[in-house]
């Protein structure tokens, strides 16, 4: 048997596909699928949340919220009565006051509003009415229910992506997109609050003075607010002027 040395001309073990083209093709496919899933779930949640009774939410969250101890229970009851006056006893809201240096208030599922004492010490009663009306606006628009439903669905989706495949990147992109949605919810909650405040005071001075206080206090640029859950205070003041123009017309 004679051995004839032959140089390998073509490597049959390697595919001719360009790795970069394959990479982009797969990335684009996955992004399109994820966008479709994100939009579809968003639509389903927006429609479905309206059919979940508020009483269910209150009952589900009762055990969790009851564990939060309010530091000024009498003040909390007083604030609950303020909300009843503002909303004409439309629905029952529950207030908890917590100790914190942060000037903030936020809504939790089940018609619960948490207010930090630093906020109470730094705003007037009229400005507090605006803050409460704003949180009520979130409940009216079912923003809180939608937010938690989205969080639940997307945490399930992310469990299909491993850490190696970029779970943290998925969360980063999702978080930034959700922040933009959140800013729209904030504007809509502001609009609802304007209506309630105007009904009580016949002006929106409390809202304007509240946003001016934030503007003076935080001094953050518009860029910082781009990725924030809340719009820039200047933008919110613009919305007040817009609402005033509508009233005058």
């Amino acid at each position: 048997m004679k051995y004839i040395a032959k140089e390998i001309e073509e490597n049959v073990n390697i595919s001719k596909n360009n790795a970069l083209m394959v990479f982009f093709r797969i990335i684009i496919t996955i992004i399109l699928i994820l966008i479709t899933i994100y939009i579809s779930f968003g639509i389903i949640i927006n429609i479905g949340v309206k059919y979940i009774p508020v009483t269910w939410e209150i009952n589900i969250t009762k055990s969790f919220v009851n564990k939060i101890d309010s530091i000024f229970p009498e003040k909390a009851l007083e604030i609950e009565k303020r909300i009843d006056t503002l909303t004409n006893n439309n629905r029952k809201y529950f207030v908890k006051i917590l100790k914190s240096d942060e000037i903030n208030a936020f809504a939790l599922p089940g018609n619960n509003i948490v207010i930090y004492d630093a906020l109470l010490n730094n705003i007037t009663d009229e400005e507090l009415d605006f803050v409460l009306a704003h949180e009520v606006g979130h409940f009216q628009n079912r923003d809180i229910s939608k937010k938690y439903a989205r969080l639940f669905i997307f945490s399930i989706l992310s469990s299909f992506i491993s850490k190696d495949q970029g779970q943290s990147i998925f969360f980063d992109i999702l978080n930034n997109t959700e922040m933009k949605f959140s800013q729209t919810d904030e504007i809509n909650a502001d609009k609802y609050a304007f209506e309630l405040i105007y009904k009580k005071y016949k002006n929106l001075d409390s809202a304007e003075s509240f946003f001016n206080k934030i503007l003076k206090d935080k001094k953050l640029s518009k860029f910082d607010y781009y990725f924030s859950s809340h719009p820039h205070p200047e933008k919110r003041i613009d919305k007040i002027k817009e609402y005033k123009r509508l009233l005058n017309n």
Partner: protein
Amino acid sequence: MANIIIFISLLLIGYFAGKYAESKHYSSIKERELKLLYLPVVTLKKTWTEEDQIKKSKLVTGSVVISLDYFKRILAALINITGGRIISYETLLDRGRREAILRMKKDSLGYDCIVNFRMETSSIGQSANNKKSIGSVEVMAYGTAVKFVK
């Protein structure tokens, strides 16, 4: 945001550095394959007749450990989701096999042929216990080098 920037930076570094390392390795492989083309490697147990006399023989081995770059690792992970040929592993294993054979041939310089050639591959490093992905691969080629009486 920082995570995205780090990820894209690693991808770019992995792609360009990996591409450079791979093309350099392939050039070296082709050059050495040409030089050692005269030395046959067969999987047969023997290639000689009764008349041939064996002067000497020895076990020869060649092994190499090769790793994927970051870009190829991510590409392999994505193909694992969508299915299809994992092209990033193809070049890894091809380079590994050819390099191992070349090292085995280098070990058998002065011999006439290598018979009973076998090759084995195993995952090593952090990915060794992870069945879903490979990162580093060790390829080992071994056989019996034989020199005949001329």
